[in-house]
Structure formats: structure tokens, C-alpha cells
């Protein structure tokens, strides 16, 4: 039971069901994060990735365990797709000592370095050169690792985007530039502030790079597009720009109700919910509804347990504010 999405790639049903469960886990985590934020248990801000799950899970499935991933402040889905547990993420959001970053990072900086997830960066576009550097390092060390930089449509109008694409092209680096185009730069339609219709893909040719525009809500399509780009990068043929079209289910951040988005547009995209698309694919492949529901139930249960565990986790010792500035673990700047 397989579905062929192009000549070279096929996905079998059990693997697709696994991807579905990962996406459901992300969706449930984001719902929990929203509820916890609204209840006051999460301070500061959150940028939820519900709706973007297929980009993270489809890409991650095309990567090796030792590849590098760099994400943005909307990065919970990438942390989880690379192996962070929901409890580590939620504990971080809830300012708990057991959080991914020991409560020093917060929602915008989720990082799981031992899984190659090398950070979530909250200065728009800043991590594209950093990802290029990780790819450069892999190339010099001869490890055949690759790096992936995920970024939003808004990042394509920032200088670092263009500096990174040019450098990566000139040095033929094994890096993927993956734009999660959700059509809104914060509260502003990206089309109204951008000179080309496809903010990332249309800029790729200016740097001599190949690009593709894909349905970022279809995990199979995402996986297949990434696999081609990953193989290309690993073979030494350089970077690829992939623009994955997707849509946020929540507002930009915090309590933004996203009223600037027309109701019919929202409705259209809800019909293209990545979980819905995958459920339909699974049904086509003959997976029973009960098996899909069981995956949903496992995800919901896991996140529920994660919320409870995170709530009960200890707060950080204030003394840890003065650790890990330096590699020796300390923070001394003078004698």
C-alpha cells in the first residue's frame, strides 16, 4: 500500500501514519500552549505554529539524524519534529527549570542541540547566515551533513536573507532555505510589501539558485520536495530554495485574533488543514478511521501528561541566571 508522489519517492501507509501522529502531537502542543498562555501560565509571548506542522514533519523525515536545523521564533514545530519532547517545550514556555533551555530562552528560542536542532532565532532573517555557516562547517569537515534554515515570508525582505543566499550559492554549501510562506508578515499581507509574488522562490534566481513552490500543508509533498533538495545538497550540488505555502491557525503572536485576514480566506485554508489532508491520504491508502483516531488519542494523551508534568516542574534557581554565559559555565566578566 503505497502512494507514488513522483517517480523517485514513495511513502508507505505506516510511515505516513507516523508522520500524522507527529503532526497531531505538534497540534496538541500548540493548543496546550495557547490555553496555558490564556490562563496566565505562560508569560511573555508565543508564536504558534498550528497549521505549519507538515513543513516541519515532512522536512524532518527527509533529514539524517545528524543534520542541522535552524528555526525562527515560530519554531515549536521544528523542535518537536527533531525530537524535543512536548514536556520540555511546555516547561520552557512555563518558565520551569526542566525546560529545553532551562527557562533562559522561552518560547522564541527553543533549542535541542543534541538532536541537531541548533536554535530558534527571534531576529528576523538572522539565522540564514548562521545555517550557511553550519553547512560550510559540514563541508569542510567532510561529514556530508546538511543544514536547513526555516524562515517566514517576512524574512525575504531583510538583508541577511540575500547575503546568506549569495554566500551559500558562491560556496556551493549544503544548505536548504525553506520559506514557510503563510502570506502574512506579522499583521501585513506579504504581497503588499514585497516586489515579487513569491517572496522566496522569485528571489532565488537572482542568486543563481534553484527554487520550488510547494503545498506546505501536504506532508508528502513537503517530504518529496525536501528529499530532492537534500540529495542535491548532500551530493555537493549546493543550496535549494523551497517556498512552502502554508497558513497560521492562530494569529501572529500572543492574543492576536488575526482579524486582518478575510473570513473566506481563513475558511479556504482550514479546508486545507495539513492534518485533514493527511487523514484523507491515509484513508485513500486504506488505513482504518479507528487507527487514525487512535493516533490522535495518543497525541492528546501525551500532551495532557506533558502539561501536568510541566505544571509540577520546579522553577529555576535564581542562581542559574549567572551560569552559562561562558563555556566554563560561569558569567564572570572581571576579577
Amino acid at each position, binding site marked *: 500500500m503505497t502512494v507514488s508522489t513522483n517517480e523517485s519517492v514513495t511513502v508507505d501507509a505506516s510511515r505516513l501514519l507516523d508522520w500524522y501522529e507527529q503532526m497531531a502531537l505538534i497540534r496538541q502542543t500548540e493548543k496546550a500552549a495557547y490555553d496555558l498562555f490564556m490562563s496566565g501560565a505562560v508569560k511573555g509571548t508565543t508564536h504558534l505554529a498550528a497549521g505549519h506542522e507538515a513543513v516541519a514533519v515532512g522536512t524532518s523525515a527527509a533529514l539524517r539524524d545528524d543534520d542541522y536545523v535552524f528555526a525562527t521564533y515560530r519554531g515549536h514545530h521544528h523542535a518537536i519534529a527533531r525530537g524535543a519532547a512536548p514536556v520540555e517545550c511546555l516547561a520552557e514556555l512555563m518558565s520551569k527549570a526542566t525546560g529545553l533551555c532551562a527557562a533562559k*530562552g522561552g518560547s522564541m528560542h527553543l*533549542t535541542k542541540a543534541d538532536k541537531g536542532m541548533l536554535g530558534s532565532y527571534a531576529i528576523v532573517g*538572522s*539565522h540564514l547566515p*548562521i545555517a*550557511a*555557516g553550519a553547512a560550510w562547517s559540514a563541508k569542510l569537515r567532510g561529514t556530508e551533513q546538511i543544514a536547513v534554515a526555516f524562515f517566514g515570508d517576512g524574512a525575504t525582505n531583510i538583508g541577511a536573507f540575500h*547575503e546568506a543566499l549569495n554566500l551559500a550559492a558562491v560556496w556551493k554549501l549544503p544548505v536548504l532555505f525553506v520559506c514557510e510562506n503563510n502570506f502574512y508578515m506579522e499583521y501585513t499581507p506579504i504581497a503588499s510589501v514585497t516586489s515579487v509574488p513569491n517572496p522566496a522562490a522569485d528571489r532565488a534566481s537572482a542568486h543563481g539558485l534553484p527554487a520550488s513552490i510547494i503545498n506546505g500543508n501536504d506532508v508528502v509533498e513537503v517530504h518529496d520536495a525536501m528529499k530532492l533538495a537534500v540529495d542535491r545538497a548532500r551530493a555537493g550540488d549546493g543550496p535549494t530554495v523551497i517556498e512552502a505555502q502554508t497558513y497560521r491557525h492562530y494569529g501572529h503572536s500572543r492574543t492576536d485574533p488575526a482579524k486582518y485576514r478575510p473570513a473566506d480566506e481563513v475558511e479556504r485554508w482550514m479546508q486545507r488543514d495539513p492534518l485533514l489532508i493527511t487523514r484523507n491520504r491515509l484513508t485513500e491508502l486504506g488505513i482504518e478511521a479507528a487507527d487514525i483516531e487512535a493516533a490522535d488519542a495518543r497525541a492528546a494523551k501525551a500532551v495532557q501528561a506533558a502539561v501536568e508534568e510541566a505544571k509540577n516542574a520546579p522553577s529555576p534557581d535564581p542562581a542559574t541566571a549567572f551560569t552559562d554565559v561562558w563555556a566554563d559555565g560561569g558569567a564572570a566578566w*572581571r576579577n
Partner: protein
Amino acid sequence: MAELTTYREAVSEGLAREMRRDPSVVCLGEDIGAAEGVFKTTTGLFAEFGPERIWDTPISEQAIVGAAMGAAMTGLRPVAEIMFSDFFACCYDYLANEIPKVRYMTGGQVTVPLVVRTANGGGLGFGAQHSQAVENWVFTVPGLKIAAPSTPADVVGLMASAVRSDDPVIFFEHKGLFGTKGETAPPNHVVPLGEASVVRPGNDVTLVALASTVKTALSAADQLAGEDISVEVVDLRCLVPLDAKTVLASVARTSHLVLVEENPYQGGWGATVASIVADEGFELLDAPIRRVAAECVPLPFADALEDAVIPTVDKVIDAVRRLAAF
């Protein structure tokens, strides 16, 4: 007599020694390869180490420093060159928001063992956008180590420590010192980060200086000796870690302190050193702390104008005389 070398040659020598020692050290920057650097501070490196370890970049300061950061997080020890320190403004996000914070905000999950080298400072008539002393730009950001050597031997010794450091180091090379000569660094010379040096002992007044102002302070001390004012000169060598102990110990001997800094008075590093001495060494002082810093205007072009703005030997002598007579 010991063998002499130029400060400029010491930069190349310091880099070459570390690159020979550790294959994970790689350099990147504008014109640093076959062209050997616009200040000729990477002479011989491309010939010895080749294009796999000496990388010419486009004029893309964000890409240079950003790529160095990504490489440092994944197993290399990159040394990035930013041609003029004024261009730190073009990649300040990496110096202020990314490099110094990524270890901390990930709860210690990553390290960033990199060096950003740059030609800093004035005195050569390059005008307002190529002459600034900007050590205070990075001194405001917790999470960066800062070295600024004043002699060829210290260039080599501090470069060794900077490259070997598992923390990010900003390495200021002073444009006005490139042609100056000093003793050649002995083999395996290492100067630890954060150790100031008393380069001239004295009894009456302490001058604390950094990079080019060490030379200025020493010239002033020579002249003041003829007036029977005994001046001690402390070369800080690093701003972070800051060797406050050596400064306080010197003030304990002289009871008079003048800080000689090339960055502007407003927000200059001397203000922090002065505040430490005021907090922790108030009872050691017999007179107010004085700062001879750059004036708070952009750096002008003409020599006569530039001299009016940056610290000079005459300005230091004047400050010391007034203090000695306080």
C-alpha cells in the same frame, strides 16, 4: 638585542601559529586570501594553508560573521575578519544579539568558539566612517570577550588565547600600530585573556591605557619623568575579562588615576573602569579620577582636526600635571 617584528607581521604570525597547531582553525573575510588583506595582516596564509582554510568572502558582513557563528557552533574555530571596525555596525545583530547570547539562551547547549578580528581606531586620516575606535560598541554587550593588544608580542600571545578560547572573542588590531615594531614573540607564546600588564612602573600617577593609547601613555610618562612626576602605565590588554585587580593595585600605589581611551568619552570603557575604582577603591584615591578620551563628535578627516578629537600625548601630559598638582 632581541629580534624585532612589526605589529602587522605579528597578526599573520599569530594566525599562522594557531592554524598550524589546530586544523579546525579557518579564516574568512574580504580580500584576506591571495590579496593577503587590505592591511597585509594575512600575509603568507593563503600560500601556506590554501583555499580550504583561507576563504575570501563577498562584501557581506552579516554573512561573514553569521557564517562564522554557525561554523563555530558545529566544530570549527573560525576567525572572521571585518576589515574596518566601523563595519561592525553592518553586522551588529550578530555581535549584539546572536553570538553573545546563543549559549546563554539555550541553557548552555552550544558554544561559540570564534574570533572576530578587526582594524580599529584613528590617527591615519581615514575620516568618520573608517577611523572610529569602537571597542565600547562591543563592551556594552555581556557575552563577548574583548582583546586589544598594543605590541607585536601581545598580538601573537593574545591571538593564541583568542583562537583557543571556547568563548567568542572580539580582537581589535589597531590601524595606527600596524607599522610599529616590538620584540618578536617567543615560540608557543600565550598571553591569557584578562591579564593586564604594568608596562612601566611608577609612584605618582597611574595611567590605564589600551592598544594605541598605551604608546601615547608611555610617551607622556617619558616626558613627565623630566618634571619629576613618576607615572605608572597599565596596559589593560583586554576589556573582558577586565583585570580590575591590577588597576586597583596600581591605584593603591599611586593614589591618582587617569584613564586614556580612544573611544568617545560618552559611553567609553573608561567610565566603567572609573566606576569600579570609585566603588571599590575610593579610599585609595587622593584626587578625582580623570578620563582622557575622544571628544564626543564624529572623527574628522584633517590631521589638525583629528588631533583635536582623539587622545594625544599633550592631552595626557596636561591631565597628569593637573592631577599631580591637585
